[in-house]
């Protein structure tokens, strides 16, 4: 069991399932899924997402910008929602994060509704992602005091950074998975503060095929690894800001 915080920095968590191209999919599917989840996710609304697509056409590379609609099924407090797109199924959880014990059952309900509606043998991709916005209420912040994962500047380099982005991919060979870990500077909510985005994206490597009956176990293990990585990224001083609940 990971640590619990009174003010966790999570601004969004996403559990995403992508279905293989041979999965039967049509416009009635979102409605059928909604029927199965409407008690938990009673609000239904469309969202428009804009995408840029590059396409190799006869005249060379063409760039297209187009809008795609996804259907969202939201909980009463609108904090957790299911996104249903074309062969895309995601369960998002926004701030305030209600703990894994409350979020995971929502993932289970949603995934069951999906697999009860259409036949899903394997998943093309699963992803579990946690995006944290960390606000440090100090005018001057020394990253070493708060982060165990941070940019390193050698002794001959200036110590002041205006902006930064640092990332790495951590392999988890036994799971056939990787975690993309990234820390960037962000725009703080309050003046005189500093903000950072710590993004942990855990996903299977390309060759790893996840059978759908294994999906939820995979997600649980992924969550355990993400918790460990998150704790490994921060110092006791940052835990104090998050207010650990013992």
């Amino acid at each position, binding site marked *: 069991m990971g640590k619990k915080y009174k003010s966790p920095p999570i*601004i*969004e968590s*996403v559990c*995403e399932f*992508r279905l293989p*191209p041979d999965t039967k999919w049509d416009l009635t599917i979102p409605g059928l899924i909604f029927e199965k989840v409407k008690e938990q996710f009673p609000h239904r609304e469309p*969202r*428009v*997402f*804009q*995408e*840029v*697509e*590059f*396409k*190799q056409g006869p005249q*060379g*590379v063409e*760039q297209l*910008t187009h*809008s*795609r609609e996804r259907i969202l099924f939201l909980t009463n407090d609108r904090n957790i929602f299911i*996104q249903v*797109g074309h062969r*895309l199924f*995601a369960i*998002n959880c*926004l701030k305030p994060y209600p703990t894994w014990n409350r979020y995971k059952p929502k993932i289970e309900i949603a995934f069951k509704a999906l697999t009860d509606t259409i036949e899903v043998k394997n998943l*093309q*991709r699963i*992803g579990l*992602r946690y*995006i944290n*916005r960390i606000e440090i209420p100090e005018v001057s912040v020394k990253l070493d005091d708060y982060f165990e994962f941070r940019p390193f500047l050698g002794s001959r380099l200036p110590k002041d950074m205006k*902006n930064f*982005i640092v*990332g790495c*991919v951590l392999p988890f060979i036994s799971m056939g998975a990787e975690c*993309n870990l990234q820390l*960037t*500077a*962000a*725009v*703080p*909510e309050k*003046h*005189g503060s500093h903000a950072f*985005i710590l*993004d942990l*994206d855990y*996903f299977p490597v*390309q060759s790893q095929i996840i059978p759908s009956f294994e999906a939820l176990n995979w997600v649980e293990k992924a969550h355990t690894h993400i918790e460990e990585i998150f704790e490994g990224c921060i110092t006791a001083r940052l835990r104090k800001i998050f207010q650990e609940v013992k």
Partner: protein
Amino acid sequence: MPETSISTASAKRSEYMIREIGQKYIVGEPSESHAYTVLNGLLPLLCEQKSKGVIGDFDLTKLAPYSLVDIDKSSDITTEIETLLNLLVSKRIIIPKPAEIRRYLMVYTDMIHIILPICGIINEKLNAPAQVSLEVYKDPEIKDEHLVIYMRQAVYDDKIMNIIDEINEECDGLLHNKSGWLIITTDFKPPQSDK
């Protein structure tokens, strides 16, 4: 294919993000159409570059090592917003209440990608120094809110309203069919402190 002509820092970051996204979403064999859908935080940058007319020169061969196919949009909402806010601040656009902008864009997600191009248009049209401030306007009488970009100058140019009209006209196309709304105007106040 021509080599990319983009040499700005944002283009470098785009390339970095393409590689990042590429590594994240390598899927199977390349499809016949070689369709790449490029996402996440990258989109605001691409829209900005498109508005400057440089996107056509983007070097897709850089993607080839990853056999990218059918990259779909990331399912999170917050990353694009955070990237946008970072870019706006780096362009000296002030955001007095970032929490309000974040909350608005979480609902009106298709507005995320037009803000940077609109700021680009404002920058092009303005021929005098001005402060650009992105805010959420809440109508106190009816339950309505929308984005507003205030242009503020220390000494107001006589032609400021004409310039604003021109900017609004040029931005109309970007706002077409969007779920939210954005107004570009001035309140004739002097530039505000962003502290």
